[in-house]
């Protein structure tokens, strides 16, 4: 058993942990980073392989050894989820993600007040725990800008300081300057999506992605190989934390990364402060780090689980949980899909960055009038391969064949043979509202490889507001497929209520210690030297992918810690 002392310990070296490690290290703070998985390098990704990375999820937690269970309601038995959509290595999910990098809309930060103002409070479902964020888009804009420029994001502005620009996303919040890099090239699926969307009067654009369209900061540009979502980048053109912030953190001389380590407890004393963490080493040893500042930067399940298992006499319901909000308001993107096949052309959708290739934002957030509709909020629409990954295993696993064709046999073989290179999926990534009874807690029976109780999700998106939104957006997807020139299009089944990708919630931020776990900086209301940063703090989720917002929040927290907390370690709000 080893014990060591440091200024800061960060649990989890992903989208948040890497940024904090670099920024705090630069400010002279001694940082130790704990990472459950290994530290890989670009050289590790030279053999792109759909079986290993997409199908067997080699860059994600092993669903058997690190189970997360799910049940649709408190009355149902929870079972382990077959696939876990987050990272399991230094760099976290940014190593294998599709690198889609959005700024949230202005109204994404004030969903409750926006809804009441435009449609009246009766438009909000009675059982939803919908609230505004404790910060505005304007508060976060400088940090979005910094994240885009430091990491390297490619895209085209659609709103420069209020001036709308065709070809970019005209629904985006105002930005101070252009993207640091021009948009990535569109492939055939993007071009026909663009054409079809224009026919319908929509506003399509190249999805902003943290993938380099030109060389930048010493890294080469994208080769359009198509292995992004689920894969590590073989040239380092994806702006993952692994190739951006971790080298910066190393260069400070103040950062030490411990891989293969599993934090199992946040330690605290009776003074109302945390004293550090305990973790299992790669050899199974039990070790302790004493730190002035503890930052939890894991995926949302582990942020919540760590606090739950670290309960004390003072916090019997979980550390830092005097509000009783810990583990509540779990959200996830639900993604209806329409598959489209083309007779007059090949689409070859396996080429080019594979997630959400080309997009439109006309039906996201409050960008359209919901009067007379039976739901609020919307979704981001894009063209993609079947499961955001372009290979044939992905198509065989994730694309249901059209009605009349079975999933096997000669007819299925012929379907795949003809249409694998002639299909596109049109998808909507929908914003779902927070509900207090959608939760993360500890599974009473299932344990992980370290003997810790598995995180248990209780969640079912099939609520009236969500069902109506999905039906509305699926209709839009069908219109798009037709406008794109598809000879046949059909829906994908919607499944049994399980959470999709991009989970949010569990350690909600707010401006009231009684109704939230952390403040806008991710600082615990109960314990000022404990920070929890990541999408677990999101009060609402947006129809956009969360990572750039997670990274902007990380920069904002780093700024507050370096410039204010360091001098005066107390409450920042």
């Amino acid at each position, binding site marked *: 058993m080893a014990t060591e002392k440091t200024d800061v310990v960060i649990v989890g070296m992903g989208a948040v942990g890497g940024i904090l490690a670099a920024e705090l290290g630069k400010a002279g703070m001694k940082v130790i980073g704990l990472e459950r998985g290994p530290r890989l390098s670009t050289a590790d990704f030279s053999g792109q392989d759909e079986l290993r990375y997409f199908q067997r999820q080699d860059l994600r937690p092993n669903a058997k050894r690190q189970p997360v269970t799910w049940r649709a309601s408190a009355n149902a038995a929870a079972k382990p989820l077959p696939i876990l959509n987050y990272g399991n290595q230094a760099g976290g999910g940014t190593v294998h993600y599709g690198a889609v990098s959005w700024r949230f809309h202005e109204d994404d930060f004030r969903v409750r007040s926006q809804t009441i103002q435009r449609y009246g409070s009766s438009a909000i479902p009675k059982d939803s725990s919908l609230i505004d964020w404790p910060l505005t888009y304007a508060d976060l804009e400088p940090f979005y800008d910094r994240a885009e420029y430091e990491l390297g994001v490619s895209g085209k502005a659609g709103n420069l300081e209020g001036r709308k620009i065709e070809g970019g996303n005209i629904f985006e919040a105002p930005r101070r300057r252009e993207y640091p890099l021009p948009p990535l090239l569109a492939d055939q699926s993007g071009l026909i999506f663009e054409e079809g969307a224009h026919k319908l009067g929509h506003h399509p654009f190249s999805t902003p992605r943290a993938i380099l369209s030109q060389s930048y900061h010493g890294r080469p540009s994208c080769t359009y190989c198509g292995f992004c979502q689920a894969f590590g980048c073989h040239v380092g053109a994806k702006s993952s934390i692994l190739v951006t912030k971790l080298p910066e953190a190393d260069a400070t001389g103040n950062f030490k990364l411990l891989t293969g380590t599993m934090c199992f407890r946040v330690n605290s004393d009776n003074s109302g402060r945390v004293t550090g963490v305990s973790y299992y080493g790669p050899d199974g040893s039990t070790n302790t780090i004493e730190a002035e500042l503890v930052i939890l930067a894991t995926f949302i399940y582990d942020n919540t689980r760590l606090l739950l298992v670290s309960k004390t006499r003072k916090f019997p319901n979980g550390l830092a949980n005097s509000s009783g909000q810990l583990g509540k308001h779990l959200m996830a993107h639900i993604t209806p899909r329409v598959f489209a096949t083309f007779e007059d052309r*090949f689409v070859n959708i396996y080429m080019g960055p594979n997630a959400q290739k080309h997009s439109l934002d006309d039906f996201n957030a409050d960008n359209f009038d919901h009067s007379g509709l039976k739901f609020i909020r919307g979704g981001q629409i894009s063209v993609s391969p079947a499961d955001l990954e372009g290979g044939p295993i992905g198509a065989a696993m994730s694309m249901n064949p059209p009605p009349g064709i079975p999933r096997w046999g000669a007819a299925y073989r012929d379907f795949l043979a003809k249409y694998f290179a002639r299909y596109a999926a049109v998808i909507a990534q929908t914003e779902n509202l927070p509900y207090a009874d959608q939760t993360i807690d500890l599974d009473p029976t299932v344990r992980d490889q370290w003997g810790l109780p598995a995180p248990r999700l209780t969640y079912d998106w099939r609520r009236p507001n969500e069902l109506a939104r999905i039906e509305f957006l699926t209709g839009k997807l069908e219109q798009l497929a037709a406008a794109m020139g598809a000879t046949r299009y059909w829906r994908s089944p919607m499944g049994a209520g399980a959470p999709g990708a991009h989970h949010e919630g569990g350690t909600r931020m707010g401006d009231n210690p009684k109704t939230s776990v952390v403040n806008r900086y991710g600082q615990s209301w109960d314990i000022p030297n404990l920070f929890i940063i990541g999408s677990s703090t999101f009060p609402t989720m947006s129809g956009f992918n969360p990572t750039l917002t997670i990274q902007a929040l990380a920069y904002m927290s780093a700024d507050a810690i370096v410039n204010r907390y360091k001098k005066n370690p107390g409450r920042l709000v």
Partner: protein
Amino acid sequence: MTEHDPGRRTFLVRAIVGTGAIAGAELVPAQTTESPKEANASAQSHSGEDRHGAFFNRDDAATVAAFTERLMPGAPGKPGAHDTGVLHYIDLALAGAYADLQDFYRHGLAQLDALCRKRYNEPFVRLNAARQDEVIRALEQGEATEFTWPTAQEFFNTIRTHTMEGMFADPIYGGNKDFAGWRLVGFPGAQPIFTRTDLESKQAFSRAPVTGL
């Protein structure tokens, strides 16, 4: 029971002989739902790709070969499970990455055999293609109460998944022989680069498939 047990020895010898007879006589379904031409081609193709030995015994290998060939049947110019080496892929996977599914397969195959013997008095490999398809459809629909663990649908879905993996995974894993699966669907493998012309093309991509990068 030790390796010197004469009773076990006799049993093993019989089992091997029996399986050999079954495999030799009628791995190929007598009747199929495809055209006679396709079924014929399928029969001719059963020559050299049923490699196994890392995990499956001969009985089980024959059953898996027959089952996966019904899921993805081969035809002239259209390679199927057999042609691409799906059995070889699954055999290697169960000896390695999917070792935790060994008993899943053992039980599933035993249940499949019991079901076929109960309904048709024959093991799966001896049924004609129409009957094999009937059995597979029953598993897919969960209409097979003979299955407890794995359930019929779990068993079907797993074999389907592994068949697709064997058809379309990089050949390094033992299937997708000579890129036959990739050629079937027009996937060029792990191409290190696509140009603007490639991206915008409305034509079939013509460069040969490559492995790795």
